[in-house]
Each structure stands twice: as structure tokens, then as C-alpha cells.
């Protein structure tokens, strides 16, 4: 009884994040990501991943997966997806070509699904490795976007690029902090249950 209420709330939360993230790729909201690199990279892309993450949490099946032991496969796949969508040329394509944008929506949502699936199956040490890598990659990319003289995306202005760069740095740091906090909480909860 309690469990079904919980999963209903989880489903609603997942929908509340996923639907706006999808809507940003459809008119009339599409103009936001077409005109602003920050809306595209700092808001829509993370929302898509978060939507996938929350959706997998709502599905909440915890059976062991032989293809994703310790969450390794999911981590590699998620890393590859994120690396691809950090390429300036991929960002251009997503704005110019609707089919590329569809690919972006599907793969980043899948990235979130995979990440959640993997996090549930991986020890904190492995998580640290992947989170650490992602945070450093994101922060470096953000600093580069914010400081380079080169205009990286043909579809966005220099100003928009600097703005997005700052946003990406903040996003990377927030991601690291969120992981750290949740890990500390989990360890504390484990210790409490062990000594109780």
C-alpha cells in the first residue's frame, strides 16, 4: 500500500521532469533551445537525463542484471552518449536537423535510464570514478566554452556560448555536490541500520 503510493509519486515526478524536457524540442518551446545555448545545454540536456533517471527510479525493478554488473555497461554507454552531445558539431546538428534532435532526446533520456540502472548496482568506489570523471570533464568543458575566443557553435552567438559555459561549470559542480551528499546520506543510513 505504502509502496504503491510511493511509486505513483515517483511516476508523477518523472513525468513532471520528462515532459517539459521533451516539450523543449517541440514548437513553440523549441525556439528557446534554438536561440539560447544555455537553454539547450544547461537546461534541456540535463533535464532529459534527469527525466530518464527519475523514470527508471519509478520503474524501480531491482533484479540483478547479468549485462550490467556493477553498472559498468550503463556507465560506459552513458559516458559515450554525454561525450557525443558535448561535441559542438553535434549541438549544431541538433538545432538544425529535426532527426538529429530526435536522436538527442532519445539518447539522453536513455542515458538517464542507464545511469540510474547502473547507480543501483555499483559500489561507491566505481561511482566515484565515473562521477569524478564526469564532473572534471563537464567543468573543463564549461571553462573552455566560457573563455575561448573561438566561436564553437555556428548556431549560437559568442555571448550565448560564454553564458552557457558558466552554466555548464555550475552544473558540473552541482552534480559532484549532489553525488557527495547522497553518498554521505547513504553511508550514514547503512551505519545506522548496522548498529541498530
Amino acid at each position: 500500500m505504502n509502496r504503491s503510493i510511493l511509486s505513483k509519486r515517483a511516476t508523477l515526478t518523472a513525468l513532471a521532469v520528462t515532459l517539459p524536457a521533451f516539450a523543449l524540442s517541440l514548437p513553440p518551446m523549441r525556439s528557446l533551445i534554438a536561440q539560447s545555448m544555455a537553454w539547450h545545454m544547461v537546461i534541456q540536456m540535463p533535464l532529459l537525463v534527469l527525466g530518464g533517471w527519475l523514470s527508471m527510479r519509478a520503474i524501480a525493478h531491482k533484479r540483478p542484471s547479468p549485462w550490467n554488473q556493477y553498472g559498468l555497461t550503463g556507465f560506459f554507454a552513458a559516458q559515450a552518449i554525454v561525450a557525443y552531445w558535448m561535441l559542438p558539431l553535434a549541438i549544431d546538428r541538433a538545432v538544425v536537423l529535426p532527426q538529429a534532435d530526435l536522436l538527442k532526446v532519445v539518447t539522453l533520456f536513455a542515458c538517464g535510464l542507464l545511469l540510474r540502472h547502473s547507480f543501483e548496482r555499483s559500489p561507491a568506489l566505481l561511482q566515484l570514478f565515473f562521477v569524478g570523471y564526469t564532473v572534471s570533464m563537464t567543468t573543463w568543458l564549461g571553462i573552455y566554452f566560457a573563455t575561448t575566443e573561438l566561436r564553437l557553435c555556428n548556431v549560437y552567438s559568442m555571448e550565448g556560448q560564454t553564458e552557457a559555459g558558466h552554466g555548464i561549470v555550475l552544473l558540473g559542480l552541482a552534480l559532484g555536490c549532489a553525488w557527495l551528499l547522497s553518498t554521505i546520506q547513504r553511508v550514514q543510513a547503512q551505519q545506522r541500520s548496522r548498529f541498530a
Partner: protein
Amino acid sequence: MDRNSSRHSESAARPEDLLKTFGASVFVLLVGLGVIFDATDRGSGFTTEALRRTEVAREPRQIPNFLLLDLDGKKDSLRRRLAADNRVRIIDFIYMRCRSVCSSLGSVYQQLQQRILERGLQGQVSLLSISFDPAHDDAAALQDYAARMRLSPAVWEAVSLASASDRQRLLDSFGIMVVPAPMGGFEHNAALHIVDARARLVRITDYDALDQALDAALAAKR
């Protein structure tokens, strides 16, 4: 819920499952690297602009024909203009209202103009500025621009499109993307485009790489 999950992660994995995961991970990594390798043209460029330049350097691109408008109000086709004097053109894209990157492009063109005259290359290389804002840039705007930038007609011509509907086709044929910028302006991937007398785009260089552009133009002439 969380406690359940941590129990899973701590349970020992069966060896055959580890093998499956290892295989799947390697597969996923290879596919990911392959896709990125392909998308970046074998790692040669991470931006659309870099790929555009590599593609053109590898294989010249045929530019379609356009009806141009010059500062006397005369209409003439691009192909005819290029073929007429058999010179290589260094082409840039501008809009006359522009005060940011185009004005630096303008000063780059002033320097290029001076260098061509100094080296006496005007029989081989010339400069062509094409407006991508034909709705605003008519013959009068071109005359104004020519006066402001001190165009030497033997070396540097500024033209607009005779038909505003050709604008997108022109930009697409060169691979220029124009986005609105603050204060009603535009921003675009500014560069120097080397186009030979047969209307083939043979090279694209940075817009401040004067010598490189001149060398490429002279090489295309030979």
C-alpha cells in the same frame, strides 16, 4: 529501497555474468568511439566550421549560380563575373549594417586590398564581398559601404543579391549559418573563401589569416 540496492551491489557477481558485462562494456565503448570518430571526420574537427573547412580542402565545392546586384544597380551572374577576368576571388559575407565582426572583416579586407596592390597581384586575385542581407542592402547601401571602406574597384567589389529569395540558397551553398545577434544584427561563421574562376570553392581560411588566404588564392590560380 536504497538498502535493497546496496545489497545487490555488494553481492558477489557470477563469473559468467561478469564476462557478459565485460563484453557489453567493450561493445558499447567501441560503438561510442566509432560514432564520435565518424562524426568528427576521423577526429579532424569538433566544430561544424572545422569540418566545413576540411571538406572543402579535401574536395573543392562547386558553387551554384546567383544573380548579383552591384553598386551601379546592375545585375550580373556570379559565374559570368568570375569567369570574365579569370581571377581567383577571396569571398566574404557581410551585411552593411554590421558593426561587429564584419567591420573587422572590413579592415581585414582593407589590409588585403593594400597587400594585393603593393604586390601587384590585382591581375590574379581580387576581393568580393557578398551581402547576405539583400532586403536591406541595395545599390545605395553598397555605394555607401564602398565609400566608407575605400574600396579600390580594381581589387575589391561589394555586391548584393538581386533576388532576396536567393539568400538561404547562397548561405547553404557556402555553408554559412547566420544567427540573430543582439541589437538587431547577425552573427555568422566569418571566414575567407577562396573561389576560383570556375566557381569552385577551393579553400576556406580564418578571416584574419591574410597571408594564408593570399597564398591559397595564388595556388588556386596556378
